[in-house]
């Protein structure tokens, strides 16, 4: 059975439900502390879970991005291992330049949300869709344009860049894997379809080789239908978020 390490920084709080999501998808999950790197190489993949690592001091994800374990995870990802960053994990991947990963430099930011009604932290259910043709570690079980209903819960989820060419470049390279849309799959830049003002409605970005994903929505919170609004009568059936974890399992086979 493939083994996935969930990296727990001080202040993360989503590690247990992330472990449940991984195990429901047929992989073994282990929660390891950020400073326990002894057996890091033994794992087939890594998840940086949600929460508030280092209390978002200075800004979200930046302190954890400087931790030595991130350099080790970078090296492991270069050998093809899978890395998934969820919410705060996505912020860490952006601040450590693992995402989008075109240069060895921070190319983007996850800026504070732009929301006409709510200042700061905002949580709601959104729709995202997979917008790329190529296969990556995270969409093997997801068809192009398939819509997933997944929750968000963040104050800084607004993908921004000062490079005017970056977004079109990522589009061409098929790295903009998930975008916010409405329930019919129509991508619209206005709130509430885009809940945080993210450039080009970006909800998730993969790296060039498709084995590192940073996404702001929480797939681990939609792994069973009972978690999803209006679908909870379907109980223990697989939820939309499960597809991302099952894709990882297929990729690692």
């Amino acid at each position, binding site marked *: 059975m493939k083994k996935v390490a969930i990296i727990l920084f001080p202040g993360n709080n989503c590690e247990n439900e992330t472990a449940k999501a991984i195990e429901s998808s047929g992989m073994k999950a282990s929660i390891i502390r950020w400073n326990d790197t002894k057996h890091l190489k033994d794992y087939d993949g890594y998840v940086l879970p949600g929460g508030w690592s280092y*209390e978002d*001091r*200075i800004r979200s994800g930046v302190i954890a991005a400087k931790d030595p374990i991130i350099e080790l995870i970078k090296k492991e990802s270069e050998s093809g291992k899978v890395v998934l960053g969820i919410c705060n994990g996505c912020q860490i991947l952006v601040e450590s330049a693992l995402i989008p990963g075109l240069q060895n430099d*921070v190319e983007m*930011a996850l*800026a504070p949300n*732009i929301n006409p009604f709510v*200042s700061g932290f905002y949580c709601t259910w959104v729709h995202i869709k997979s917008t790329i043709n190529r296969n990556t570690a995270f969409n093997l079980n997801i068809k192009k344009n398939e819509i997933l209903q997944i929750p968000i819960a963040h104050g800084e989820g*607004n993908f921004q860049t000062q490079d005017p060419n970056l977004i079109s470049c990522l589009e061409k390279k098929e790295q903009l894997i998930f975008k916010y849309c409405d329930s019919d799959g129509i991508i619209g830049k206005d709130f509430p379809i885009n809940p945080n003002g993210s450039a080009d409605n970006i909800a998730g970005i993969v790296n060039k080789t498709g084995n590192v994903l940073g996404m702001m929505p929480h797939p681990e919170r939609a792994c069973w239908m009972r978690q999803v609004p209006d679908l909870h009568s379907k109980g223990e059936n697989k939820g939309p978020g499960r597809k991302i974890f099952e894709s990882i399992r297929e990729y690692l086979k």
Partner: protein
Amino acid sequence: MIELFVGLKIPDTVAITSLNTIKRMGYVDVKNVCRELYYQFDVDQDSGFFEKISKVDILVNANKNTYHNKLIKKSGTVYIMVFDKLDNCANLQSTLINRLGFNNIKSMRQGILWMLETGSVNTAKKIAENLLCNKHYQKYTLM
């Protein structure tokens, strides 16, 4: 233009963590890091404004904050101001005007003033660029 600098009289855990991170990044010559929140107001008729605004508890909590209106620089310290390019302070300004009655505020901005105890401006710039400021939505100025 009225300026308000707000610091902490209790330990600043953000500054402490920042210093630890700066040292771990290899900038071992930085002896200390301090931080203040910065507010700048453009007002009509500033008579008594600073005295009043410094008593607003959403800006200055008397139990834990210090405040002043003039930056006095110490030698051996580099001062870096970081602003959020996307933040026009609309929510805070609306609260100050509509809820707290500061009708004479025409515009405002807020930032964070980092004070790095290092003799090297170059070191301070590198720390600003690699840690304190993400250029994709923030900008920094050396004061």
